[in-house]
């Protein structure tokens, strides 16, 4: 056996055990009527769980909510992260301190972030509505209209630092000479940014966008901490719906089918993102 193989073998075995085997098992679950309350009576039902999933309005609602959440949060984080990186890069003093402090949110357990903002934004006892009332604004952050948007803002608070970190590193590793040449040609700051900085940052943008969107698809903690899917089902995300279906209603077969559809949707989107950003 080759040396390389011997170095790879432990990882291959472990990943087979903790990823491949569970995936196959999940596939098996998804084609059975598999309910935790009736473990002695598990029947093969073929594609029924999948057709039920496609006919389930709650599933489409949750998928829609998740897509809005991912698009909203990730694009906000991208823009704010880039702006913040550009600002901090220009800072003359305390740059390292500012960077360290600005990164803090991304290391906190998301359930804590969720609970924090649940209290900070609460209409009666929250500090933020209290301060806003001081200037005559009354906003119901977790009402039916705004709840999903509020969750997007919370995600933005926690994960803009990630984009900021990636962009800061990208900016610091930009080559000098194209900028010097542009300077000699008399290009304005703005045109340098548009025609040099942005194109040169594209690889960083690609990696950051993929990592961040995949992570945002898994949103669960904020929903669990704050809205539990409500008001109504306006903030029910896909991961939360699967959790409910599998572990509140014990319908594991249906939950598995939903999870597979989620994986398919995620893969398609990542593939699209990858080709679009690679090509241009």
């Amino acid at each position, binding site marked *: 056996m080759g040396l390389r193989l011997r*170095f790879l073998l*432990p990882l291959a075995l472990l*990943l087979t055990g903790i990823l491949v085997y569970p995936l196959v098992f999940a596939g098996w679950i998804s084609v059975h009527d598999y309910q935790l309350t009736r473990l002695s009576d598990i029947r093969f039902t073929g594609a029924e769980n999948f057709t039920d999933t496609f006919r389930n309005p709650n599933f489409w609602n949750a998928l829609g909510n998740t897509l809005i959440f991912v698009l909203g949060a990730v694009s906000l984080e991208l823009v704010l992260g880039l702006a913040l990186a550009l600002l901090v890069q*220009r*800072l003359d003093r305390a740059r390292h301190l500012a960077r360290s402090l600005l990164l803090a949110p991304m290391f906190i357990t998301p359930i804590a972030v969720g609970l924090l903002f649940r209290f900070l934004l609460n209409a009666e006892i929250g500090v933020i509505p209290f301060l806003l009332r001081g200037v005559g604004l009354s906003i119901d952050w977790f009402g039916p209209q705004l709840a999903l948007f509020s969750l997007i803002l919370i995600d933005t608070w926690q994960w803009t630092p990630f984009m900021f970190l990636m962009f800061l590193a990208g900016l610091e590793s930009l080559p000098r000479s194209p900028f010097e040449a542009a*300077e000699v040609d008399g290009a304005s700051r703005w045109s340098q940014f548009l025609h040099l900085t942005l194109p040169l940052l594209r690889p960083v943008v690609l990696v950051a966008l993929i990592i961040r969107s995949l992570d945002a*698809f898994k949103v669960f903690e904020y929903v669990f901490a704050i809205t539990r899917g409500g008001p109504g089902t306006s903030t029910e995300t896909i991961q939360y719906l699967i959790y409910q279906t599998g572990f509140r209603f014990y319908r594991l077969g249906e939950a598995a089918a939903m999870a597979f559809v989620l994986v398919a949707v995620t893969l398609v989107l990542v593939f699209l993102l990858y080709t679009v950003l690679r090509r241009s």
Partner: protein
Amino acid sequence: MNRRPSRAARLLTELGVTLALVLVLFPFVWILATSLKPAELVADPGRWVFAPTLDHWREVLLRTEVPRNILNSLIVGLCTVGIALLVGCPAAYALSRSRRSGPLRFSILSAEMMPPAILILPFFLLFYRLGLIDSLAGVVVTHLTLVVPVVTWFLIGFFDAVPRELEEQARIDGCSVFGAFFRILLPTIRPGLGAAAVFGFVLSWNDLFYALILTGGESRTLPVAIAGFWTFRGIEMGKMAVAILLAVVPVLTLSFFVQKHLVRGLGGGAVKM
């Protein structure tokens, strides 16, 4: 770039960064204040001046399960990271030194993408049959699915940055392949190992989804315990603030040591993909 930024531009920059800092730091200040507020004032958003009390801290540390939850989270995190490094390190080295490793690198990345929602179903049934529900061992296994791919991905990036000449020289000097790996390469990428370990630990320490479903009672981890503070009663909110601080302070402290290595790690094996 020899154009000096104008005074106004510098002022605007500093203003923007200060605003961002206020937005980022405000929740931390609030949670610290809440943990020190007397219970009857916690639900009063207008009260900023009060006589601080350590009641909530005493209550949480002496009369709740939170110390136990912290210990659980610590055990799970350390076991997970230990196994991940043991398995991920040699594999990352092999991947870094293979010529056509693109597909393999991609499969590591796609392992990272797997949503927990799909893996928890088989794991739950498996642990149910094996009697591993409410045990830390089950949580470790599920956390490995999060941590192993990330740690391996991190380490590939750090191995890529080590020139091949280094180990070739060691081989010429009479080292075996294993000798070169342990005595030359691992010490060289020590910062990378530290960063990967810390990042993996944070992932495990912060996880709610798996632990919520797989643990209960004695085996609950810290995030599960924090999720239990769901009421608006003042006395509970004070305790929640303490529990959150206990979860946040250790990882923030750790993160300061590895921040500068994070970027290479996250970019990871992407350079040659």
